[in-house]
C-alpha cells in the first residue's frame, strides 16, 4: 500500500511519524527513563534499602490491600451493571449508563471530599461514627471507599458494549436447554466475556494502585498507617529524599509497564478491542 502512495504524501507520512515519536519520547519515554535513572542513581543497594524501609513496606502492603478489596468489588459491580444494562430493558437505563461514567468525569479530589463530607468528624454521619468508635476518614476504610468510587466504571465500561453486542441468544439457548440461571452465567456468559473482563480488571487494578487525588484527601498521610504508594512517593519527594521517592515510583512505573504489556498481548492474541472477543 505504501508503495503506491505519491512521493509527497510519503514524506508527509514520515514527518507525522517523526512528530508522533518525538512527542511520545518527550512525554512518555524520557520521564520513564528518568524515574529509573534517578532511582538507581546511588546504586542498587540504596535502591533496595529504600524499598525495604518499614514505611515503604507498609505503603506497598496498604496499596496491595486496597487493590485486593476494590478490584473484586469492582468486578462484581461491573458484572451486575453490565448484565442489567445489556440483557434487560428497563426505565432509566440510559441514566444508569451515564451515572456509571460519572467517576471518569469528576475530579478525584471531589470524589475524596464527598467521603469527608459524609464520614468526616464534621460530616453527616461523623458524630454517629465517633460515638461508635468507627474511623473511616483518615483510616483504611476511607481509602478503600475512595478507591472504589474512582475505579468503579472500569469493568462495567468494558463489559457493557461487549455484552450488548453479544445479545441474549446464547443465554436463551442455555436456558432453553434446561440450564439454571447460575449455570448459564458460569458456563456461557462468563466464557463469552472473559477477555473483556480481564482487560477491565487490568485497567481497574492499575488505577486502584495508582490513584492519588481521592486517596490523598481521605488518607490523612499517616506514615506507616494510611499512606499508599503514590502518597508515600509524594512525602519522600517533599522531604528531598529523591532516591527513595523514585525507587517507590519505579515500582508504580513497573506496574504500568506490566499492565501495558498484558493489555497489548490480550489485544494481540484475541483481537480484543477490534470488536471481536472470542
Amino acid at each position, binding site marked *: 500500500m505504501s508503495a503506491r502512495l505519491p512521493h509527497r504524501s510519503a514524506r508527509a507520512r514520515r514527518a507525522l511519524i517523526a512528530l508522533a515519536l518525538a512527542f511520545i519520547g518527550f512525554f512518555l519515554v524520557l520521564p520513564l527513563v528518568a524515574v529509573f535513572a534517578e532511582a538507581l542513581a546511588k546504586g542498587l543497594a540504596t535502591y533496595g534499602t529504600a524499598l525495604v524501609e518499614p514505611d515503604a513496606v507498609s505503603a506497598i502492603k496498604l496499596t496491595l490491600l486496597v487493590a485486593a478489596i476494590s478490584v473484586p468489588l469492582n468486578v462484581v459491580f461491573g458484572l451486575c451493571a453490565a448484565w442489567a444494562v445489556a440483557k434487560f430493558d428497563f426505565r432509566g437505563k440510559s441514566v444508569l449508563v451515564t451515572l456509571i461514567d460519572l467517576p471518569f468525569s469528576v475530579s478525584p479530589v471531589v470524589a475524596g471530599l464527598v467521603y469527608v463530607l459524609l464520614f468526616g468528624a464534621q460530616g453527616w454521619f461523623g458524630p454517629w461514627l465517633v460515638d461508635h468508635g468507627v474511623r473511616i476518614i483518615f483510616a483504611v476504610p476511607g481509602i478503600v471507599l475512595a478507591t472504589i468510587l474512582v475505579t468503579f466504571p472500569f469493568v462495567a465500561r468494558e463489559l457493557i458494549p461487549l455484552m450488548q453486542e453479544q445479545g441474549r*441468544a*446464547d443465554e*436463551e*439457548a*442455555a*436456558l*432453553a*436447554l*434446561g*440450564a*439454571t440461571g447460575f*449455570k448459564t452465567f458460569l*458456563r*456461557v456468559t462468563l*466464557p*463469552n466475556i472473559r477477555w473483556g473482563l480481564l482487560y477491565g480488571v487490568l485497567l481497574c487494578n492499575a488505577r486502584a494502585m495508582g490513584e492519588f487525588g481521592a486517596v490523598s484527601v481521605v488518607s490523612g498521610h499517616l506514615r506507616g498507617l494510611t499512606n499508599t504508594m503514590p502518597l508515600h512517593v509524594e512525602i519522600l519527594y517533599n522531604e528531598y529524599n529523591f532516591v527513595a521517592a523514585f525507587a517507590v515510583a519505579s515500582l508504580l512505573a513497573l506496574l504500568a509497564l506490566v499492565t501495558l504489556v498484558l493489555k497489548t498481548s490480550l489485544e494481540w492474541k484475541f483481537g480484543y478491542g477490534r470488536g471481536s472477543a*472470542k
Partner: protein
Amino acid sequence: MISLHNISKSFGAFAALHDIDLTVRDGEFLALLGPSGSGKTTLLRIIAGLAFPDEGHVRFNGEDVTDLPVAERKVGFVFQQYALFKHMTVLDNIGFGLSVRRRAQRPAKSKIRARARELLDLVQLDGLGDRYPAQLSGGQQQRVALARALAVEPQLLLLDEPFGALDAKVRKELRRWLRQLHEQMRLTSIFVTHDQEEALELADRVVVLNRGVIEQIGTPEEVYMAPRSGFVSGFVGDCNSLPVTVRGNRAQFDGITIDVPVERSFDGPARLDFRPHDVAPSERDVGLPLQVSGVYRRGGSWRVEGSVNGSGPLAEIDLDADHAPPQIGSRLAFTITRARVFPIEERAR
C-alpha cells in the same frame, strides 16, 4: 397437543400480537408465515417460554404452561443465528443440555459424550465433533444447533427462521432433510419464516400472520389456492392485482368485463387478484390486452411482464415456453382463468 387461547402481547404502544387462537396437533409440521413485524417470532417465543403473553393461555396437552419458563417446558429451540456456544466444541455444544441437568438426573460424562456422538451421526456431521463452531459452515452450524436442541428429547421443536442465513442450494437440501428428521423422530415442529415458498414446501399447515393477527390457517394448498383475505393472496405466491368495480357478480376493469365468477355478493370497488399461471392466451379483442415490457424464462414457461391495457397496472403472466417468446413492445391478449376478488376495504386494513 399445543393450544393457544386469546394470546395478546404488546411492547409499549406496539401491539405485537392480538387475540391469537391456535391449536397445533401432535406430529404436525407447522409454519408461522408473515412479513417482518407480523408477530410470528414473538408467537414462537411465547410458545417456547422465552416471552410471556400479556393476556391469554398456553397449554401443552391440556396443562397450563403459560407461566412456566423455557427451562421447564421441554422444548427444543433453534435460534435464528444458531447461538452456538463459541468456546465449546461441537460435542460439548450438543451435550450441553444433558450436562447441566441436576446431579440426580445427569448421565455420566461418558454417556453424555456417547449420546452427543449419536446425535452428531444423526445430523450427518460425524467426525466434526472436536471442531469449534467458527470452523463450521453455516449449514453445518445449523445442524449442530438442531442436534443440540434434540439432545434433551423435547416434545416440541421450535425453529426461528431456520434457513434464513443459508444460501439457496444448502437451504433446499436442509429443508428436505429437516422434513425427514421430523418424520423420523416423530416430532411436533413449528417454524417461523418470512419465505412463503419455504412455508408451502415444508409445512403440513401454514399460519399466515399480519400485524399481530392470524389472517388464515390452512394447508399450503388452501392458503395458496383459496386465500381468505387480500393480504394472504398478495403475500403467498406471485400475484397480480387489478382495481375493478364489481356489479352484479361481474368485475369490470377499465370498461372491460372480466369473465370470472365473483363468489361474494357485494357491489363497489374491489381488488381482483390472479396468479401468473391462471391465465390463457386469447384472440385479440378478447380478454385483457397486455403491452409487453419484459420476458424471461422461468422453468418451462415464459414469464411475461407488461402493463394491462397499455397504461394500466403492471402484471406478470406465464406463457408456454414451447412457443416463441413474445416481442418486447408487442401487444398480446389473455383471459384470466381463475381469480379472487376482495372488497377494497380489506386492502386498507
